[in-house]
C-alpha cells in the first residue's frame, strides 16, 4: 500500500508542482525547522484510513508558489493550507483509483493543522515515508482512521 501511495505522491508532486522527490533511507536526515503543516484526508469505508503529508512551512510556501505561478512573498498561511489539502486530496483520489477500490470507500473533506517542532515530534506516526523535496523534508503518512 505504501508503494502505491508513494507512486501517486510522486505523480502529483511532479505534475502539479514540478517537484521531484527522492526517498530518504533510514537514518538519512534533512535539516528542517518548524512550524510544520500537516494535512490529511480520511478515507471512510470497511477499513478507514487517513492519508497525509507533513512539510515545513518553507516547503509549503514553495509548493503554493509553484502551483499558483506566483512569487513566494505573495503566499500566506491560508494559501499553504489550501494547497496542501488539495495535494492530499489528489493523492487520496489517485490512490483509490490505483487500488481499484469499491465505492464503499469514500473520500472525506481534507483537513490541515499547523504544528510546532515539539508537536511534530509527538505526532510522528509509525507508518510513514520520508522524502527529500527540493532540499526540504516531506513526510507521507498513513494512519488508521
Amino acid at each position, binding site marked *: 500500500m505504501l508503494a502505491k501511495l508513494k507512486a501517486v505522491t510522486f505523480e502529483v508532486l511532479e*505534475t*502539479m508542482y514540478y517537484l521531484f522527490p527522492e526517498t530518504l533511507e533510514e537514518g538519512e536526515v534533512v535539516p528542517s525547522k518548524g512550524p510544520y503543516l500537516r494535512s490529511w484526508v480520511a478515507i471512510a469505508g470497511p477499513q478507514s484510513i487517513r492519508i497525509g503529508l507533513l512539510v515545513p512551512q518553507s516547503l509549503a510556501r514553495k509548493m503554493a508558489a509553484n502551483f499558483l505561478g506566483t512569487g513566494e512573498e505573495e503566499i500566506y498561511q491560508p494559501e499553504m493550507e489550501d494547497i496542501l*489539502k488539495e495535494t492530499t486530496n*489528489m493523492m487520496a*483520489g489517485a490512490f483509490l483509483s490505483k487500488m481499484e477500490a469499491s465505492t464503499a470507500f469514500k473520500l472525506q473533506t481534507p483537513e490541515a493543522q499547523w504544528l510546532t517542532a515539539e508537536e511534530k515530534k509527538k505526532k510522528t506516526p509509525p507508518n510513514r515515508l520520508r522524502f527529500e523535496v527540493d532540499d526540504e523534508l516531506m513526510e507521507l503518512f498513513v494512519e488508521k482512521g
Partner: protein
Amino acid sequence: MAYNVLIVDDSATMRALIRKVLVISGFDIGEYFEGANGQEALGILEHEWVDVILSDIHMPGMDGEALVQNLKKHEMWRNIPVVLITTESRPEVINPFLNLGVQDYIQKPFRPETIRKKLTGILGEAITPDASETESCDF
C-alpha cells in the same frame, strides 16, 4: 468566439489554478464566474449566461451530483455542458455522472493540454493561434 466559464470548486486555490490553466490553454474566454459549491453555482446561473461549467464532485453544501441533477431539471440550464474536474476516476463514481448527462471528466492532477482537448471536443473551435506554445506545460 469567447466563451463564458463557470468554475465550481470549494478550494479557492484550485479555482484560481483552473482559471490560469484555461488562459494558458489558449481558450478564448469571455467571462469567468466562480462558485464554492453547487448552490453558489445555481445562484450565478440565475443572473449570468455561461457556456460551460467545470465542476468538482466533493464539495460542502450542494455537491457536484446535486448540482448536475438541478441543472438537468431546469429548462434553460439542462444543455449547458458540464465537465467534472475531480480527484476521482473510479468508474463507479464517474459513470453515474455520465448517465446524468455530464459531458466528460478530467482527473486531477491534470495538464493544460488535457483541459484544452476536452473543451475543444465540447465547445468546438475556440483555440487562439498561439495555444500550441503551451503544449508542454504540466499542471
